[in-house]
């Protein structure tokens, strides 16, 4: 089986790759969002801590 044949998925390329592509994108977006949220939370805590130290 050639690479082109594989990518063609017997004519169902749009449906098969549309499923796996969107799933992969969804996972990557979720990972990015959750990691971003963690860095925001930590940043906020550091600011709180600094404000507390000054007071």
């Amino acid at each position, binding site marked *: 089986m050639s690479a082109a044949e594989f990518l063609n998925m*017997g004519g169902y390329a749009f449906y*098969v790759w549309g499923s796996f592509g969107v799933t992969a994108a969804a996972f990557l977006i*979720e990972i990015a969002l959750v990691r971003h949220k963690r860095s925001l939370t930590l940043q906020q805590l550091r600011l709180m801590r600094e404000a507390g130290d000054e007071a």
Partner: protein
Amino acid sequence: MAINWFKYSAPSTFYALAGKLIPFVAIAAAILFVLGLYIGFFVAPVDAVQGEAYRIIFIHVPASIISMFLYLVMAGYAALGLIFNTRLSSMMASAIAPTGALFAFISLWTGALWGKPMWGAWWVWDARLTSELILLFLYFGFIALHASIDDARRADKAAALLAIVGSVNVPIIYFSVKWWNTLHQGSTIKFTGSTMHVAMQQGMFITLAACWLYAISITLLRVRSIILERERNTQWVSELSEVKA
């Protein structure tokens, strides 16, 4: 040996434990995804009826199972939080909800992309599809209700009730293909007399395990932020090295 079951119900100990677990679970998930998809695309044969399009099964079935399973786990944690008043249980329920919604979305999305070439329709108001759509809305409802109440502990309680009542939908999804005459095919996973090719089964079970581990790792990552946010005024949070840095 006496095990102190409540030790890890303290947010501070669980925060540290989750931090240690995440890399292992995430790496295991990645390995299983690669292995499962390799088997799914290169080892499993072409389907006699559906051709190559059936390969959507390697994400559609695992995502659907995980979307239902996560709902029950979420409702279970929410119920624990309601009964025992354990803060961490409620935080876990909140951490699971977005990932559960994501899996319900993937289930519907891949189902639509599978339905179009096989049934000729992206969507039909069929019992299986409709009850899965309701599952997605239940996740949204849980998230929205929790977000709409300022006091976190009160939000936990209200959202927990919604989650518990909504869990009646999960058996409806599962049995929908038996109870109603639907367009959707019967259960793929049968306990006896499965007619699937063994490589198809292996590929599907491995991607199922991968999805499950992915859900665990992303939930743990998310719950760590929720713990920090909700415990922000405690001594242990202000003494964390990542906060001091």
